[in-house]
Structures are given as C-alpha cells and as structure tokens.
C-alpha cells in the first residue's frame, strides 16, 4: 500500500516567495532614494489593495458579497482620528487600534446584516454603511458633514511623516498578505474552503458555518478598518463622503474581479492592473471610470475566473498555493 504525500507548494511559488521578500526589502529602502510622490502613491495603492484583499476574503472565501465594507473603512479612519486628536494617541499607533474597533463593531453589525442573504445581503450592508455615514455627518465633534483634519501629526516634519506613513503602509501590506495566506492554509482556512464549496455538507461534517462566517466577517472588518485608518493618516483630512464612499468597494470589486476572485494573488494582480490604469488614464475622469465599469462587466461575463484565474487555468500558474494535491 502506498502512502500519499500532500504537496503544498510549487517551484514557482517558492521563487515568488523569495522575489516577494526581495521586493519588500527594496521597497523598505525607498524613503532614501524615491520621490515623495511615489511614496504617497504607494500608500494610496496599499490602502486600495488591503481593502480589496479583505473584500476577496469575504466574498471569494467566505461567500459573502458585500457592497458595504466601506463602513469599516470609514470607521477605521474616524476612530484613528478621534484617538489621535482627542485621546492624544500617536496616530501610527492608533491605526491598529482603530482596526480592532472596526472588528469589534462588526459583531453587532453582523446580527443585523446576516439576516439577509445573497444579493440582498450586499445591498443591506450598503444601507448600514450609509447609516454610518449619516451618523458621522451629524457628529459636530468631528466636523459634521464637511469633515475635519488630523491635527495630531501637526508637529512632525513632512519628510519624516511621509517616510513613517510609507513604512507603516508597507508593514500593513505585508501583514495583511501574510495574515490572509496563513489563515487560508490553516485548518480554519480549509474549513472555509469546504463551506464555500458546499455549505450543507460542511455543516454536516461538524464545521460551525455561522461561526466561520462571523470570523471571516470580523477579519475582513479588521482589514477594512486598517486600510481606512492608514489612508487617512496619509490623507490628513477626513470627511463622511470620502470615508464612507461606495467607490472604495467599487474599486475593490474591480481589482478582485479583474484579478480573479477566490485566489490570493487575485487582488495583487488586480491592484497592479488598477494602478497601471490609474497612472495612464485617470486624467480622463468620467471616461476612465466608465471604462473601468465596462471592463468589469466584460471580465465578469467572459472571464469568469478573472484574468489571473484564466491564466492559471491556461498555464497552470499558482503563486500562492492554498490547494493541496496528492502525489504518489
């Protein structure tokens, strides 16, 4: 009788890991040689990317499609600002704290949101985000509808602040990728994949489906809050419309769909493509957005597994293997 071995990695993924580490090291050195505009751009893309990663986790792995994740993005931003401006906490320290608050808030929110399923769950989360937006727009302590500034970083010199923000963004990106990757390769992650494939069968195997869903929702909220707090540390100014705009989710959806949902490398590929499109076409304003929308429609209808998923199927690529296959 032969024993089967479970293979987790591929040669390509090993190479990618080393490449990733090298890139991260290179990026970390950027404040000494790169222009400040590059670093600002990186921070912005980092926020988009983390948000997209979390959306991918929620929808592609948790099976919950949400158009309201911006609720946690904005919440993270506002909590960070309030901790910084009112509680005297260093905003960089406040970033993970704000993320924790977002995660905590996600629990009572789920009691409401989980009443709905499928497409209506998606819109329901949007309503909840709107409630958040209107709530903060009515809070005069943070400037109401017109928003306010992050004063807590006033004392720091610009170059230092930008470097710190950049490094924080880099850490957040690496941490988010690592978090999601390790989570999905763990036993919990395997359970999640089982649920995604067949919820009823998973339940009958003793996997607590509702608990898993809540866990994923909370993790996604944490990531969303992290991205939001980070963004407004970089932006220095917050307003309800910017913080809770549905565009955040729109861009996340775009990145994930283009890259391929339910794959870890999906948001990475999607973020790169998005950054490139942004660089060349964002000056075209409405036409650019229109093009993005059309692209998302076309990819959804004709490339059901995203462009990366299509490449994966065609050429067998896999950078972040979460599948295990048997060898004999």
């Amino acid at each position: 009788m032969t024993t089967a071995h479970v293979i987790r990695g591929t040669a390509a993924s090993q190479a990618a890991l080393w490449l990733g580490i090298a890139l991260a090291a290179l990026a970390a050195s950027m404040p000494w040689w790169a222009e400040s505009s590059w670093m600002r751009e990186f921070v912005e893309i980092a926020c988009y990317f983390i948000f997209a990663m979390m959306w991918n986790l929620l929808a592609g792995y948790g099976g919950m499609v949400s158009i309201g994740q911006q609720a946690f993005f904005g919440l993270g931003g506002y909590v960070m600002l309030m901790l910084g401006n009112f509680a005297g906490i260093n905003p960089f320290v406040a970033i993970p704290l704000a993320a924790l608050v977002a995660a905590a808030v996600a629990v009572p929110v789920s009691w409401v949101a989980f009443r709905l399923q499928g497409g209506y769950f998606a819109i329901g989360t949007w309503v909840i985000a709107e409630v958040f937006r209107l709530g903060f727009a009515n809070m005069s302590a943070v400037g109401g509808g017109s928003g306010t500034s992050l004063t807590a970083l006033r004392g720091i010199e610009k170059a230092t602040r930008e470097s710190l923000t950049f490094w924080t963004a880099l850490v957040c990106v690496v941490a988010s990728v690592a978090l999601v990757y390790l989570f999905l390769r763990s036993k919990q992650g395997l359970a999640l994949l089982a649920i995604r494939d067949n919820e009823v069968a998973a339940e009958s195997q003793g996997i607590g489906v509702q608990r898993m869903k809540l866990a994923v929702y909370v993790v996604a909220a944490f990531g969303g809050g992290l991205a939001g707090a980070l963004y407004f540390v970089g932006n220095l100014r917050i307003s309800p419309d910017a913080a809770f705009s549905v565009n955040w989710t729109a861009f996340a959806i775009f990145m994930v769909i283009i890259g391929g949902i339910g794959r870890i490398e999906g948001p990475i590929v999607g973020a790169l493509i998005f950054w490139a499109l942004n660089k060349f076409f964002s000056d075209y304003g409405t036409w650019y957005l229109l093009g993005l929308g059309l692209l998302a429609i076309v990819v959804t209808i004709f490339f059901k597994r995203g462009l990366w998923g299509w490449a994966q199927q065609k050429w067998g690529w896999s950078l972040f293997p979460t599948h295990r296959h048997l060898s004999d």
Partner: protein
Amino acid sequence: MIETLLQGLLLGGLYCLFALGQSLMFGVMRLTNTAQGDFIVLASYGAISATTLLAVNPTVAGLVLVPVAFAFGYALQRFVLSGTLGRDPLPSLVVTFGLSIVIQNALLEVFSADPRSIESGGLATHSIALPGDLAVGALPLLIFATAVVCTAALQWLFSHTSLGRAFRAVSDDREIAELMGLDSQRIFALATGIAFMVIALAGLFQGLRTTVSPADGPLLLLFAFEAVIIGGMGSFWGTFVGAMVLGITQQIGFRIDPGWGIWFGHLVFLAVLVVRPQGLFPKTRG
C-alpha cells in the same frame, strides 16, 4: 399629523414605483439589480431629452419612453444579464454594479452634473383641496394612483394570466419549467422588460417631481430596496405597503429635522430586519 401621514403615503407611491421593478426581477430571476436607481435616473434623463429635444409634453414622452424601456430591458436581460444568473449572486451583482458606474459616468459626460428636471407645465404645483382643510399636490396624487394601478396590474398578471403562471413556475423550478416547454431565457427577458416599463414611469415621475442629477441612482436604489424588505419579499402588495411605511417614516423624520428624514427610513428598515426579517407581508417561498 394627518398632513404628514398623507405626504408620507404619497411619497410612498413614488417609492413603490421605484421598488416594483426590483421586486419583480428578484421574484422571477433571483437577480439583484444594483443599478435599479441608475436606470430610473437614466429614464428621467430620457424623459428630459424627449421633452426638450422633441418638444413634446411629459405625457407623450412617457408614452414613448415606456415601450422603449420594455425593449431595452428585454435586450439587457437577453444579451447581458442572462449569463450572470445562477446560484452565485456575485456575477449579477458585479455586472449590475458595473452598469451603475457606466450609466452614472455616461450621464455625467452627456448632461454634466447640473440638476435637471422635466417641465411639468404647472402639474407639479397644482394642488387639490380635500375636506378637513387639507390639500394634496396633484402630481403626488397622480404618482400614488399610478403606483396603485401598477401594483394591482402586476399582481393580477402574476395570479391570473398564463404568463404570470410561467413567471411563478420558472422561478420555482427552472429545470421542470423547461421540461414543460417553457423557454426560460425568453421568460426572464419578458420579466425584465416589464420591470423596465415600471422603471420608466418611476423615472418620468421623479423628473417631474424634483430635480435629477447623474449621481442620484444609489440613493434611489436604497429606497427601492428598503421598501421591498420592509414589505416582505415575494408579494407586490407587500412591496406597496413597505413603500408606504418607508414614505411615512421619512416624512416623520423630515418633520422632526430636515436632515433626519432619510436616516429615519434607514433605521426603521434596520429595525424591521432585526425584529421581523421576513418583512411585514412575506409570501412564504422556499
């Protein structure tokens, strides 16, 4: 107080028109149209263009718009949305979301962000006196009446016609319906076409009642959605009632503070979701 209630009911009439198309499409195809509001805005601009370019009055514009909307909806389902149907809600969500962005930006390009409205020739300001010192606007009353007629018509269509039977059968069990000889793609396209006829009316009235701008869509979607959920899925009269509740709630909110109307509506919606998630008048369906 009665005045507020009355205003709320009339506002509910408009929300009912927003919501009926949504209810229909979800009921037959389990499809969530996140571009519902944007299509309503598109219809408004269609009516605006018709009245200004063709120099016709709103009624004629409406008569032209409704069949055009039917054809548009039919084609949209047949050629764009049909590939997205299935157990996974994501494709239809992303495609309609993408359509939402496309429509908003296209309208922005063509019409700019300035709010526009339809010349109503006095209809918008005309009011009718009621007993008890009350007065209602003629336009809101017309909208309310239209909502009642549309709801009744849809309900009748579903319960008493063979097309309605086909709608119900295909939504219950698509495979067996096809076994009986139904062409499910054609049925879905018909349902979407009808939904878009109501959307056309909703757009026409919205443009008459107030100003529209390209970014208005998402908010209208939320109103439609809230009306459907509050009323209970699977029933047109349920959607009607849900719209009434939403309208009244918002009016009460507006009365208390002009900035609170919409928020009140959201809160009531969430409350219904927590307390009675199946809505007020659900049709139990598997």
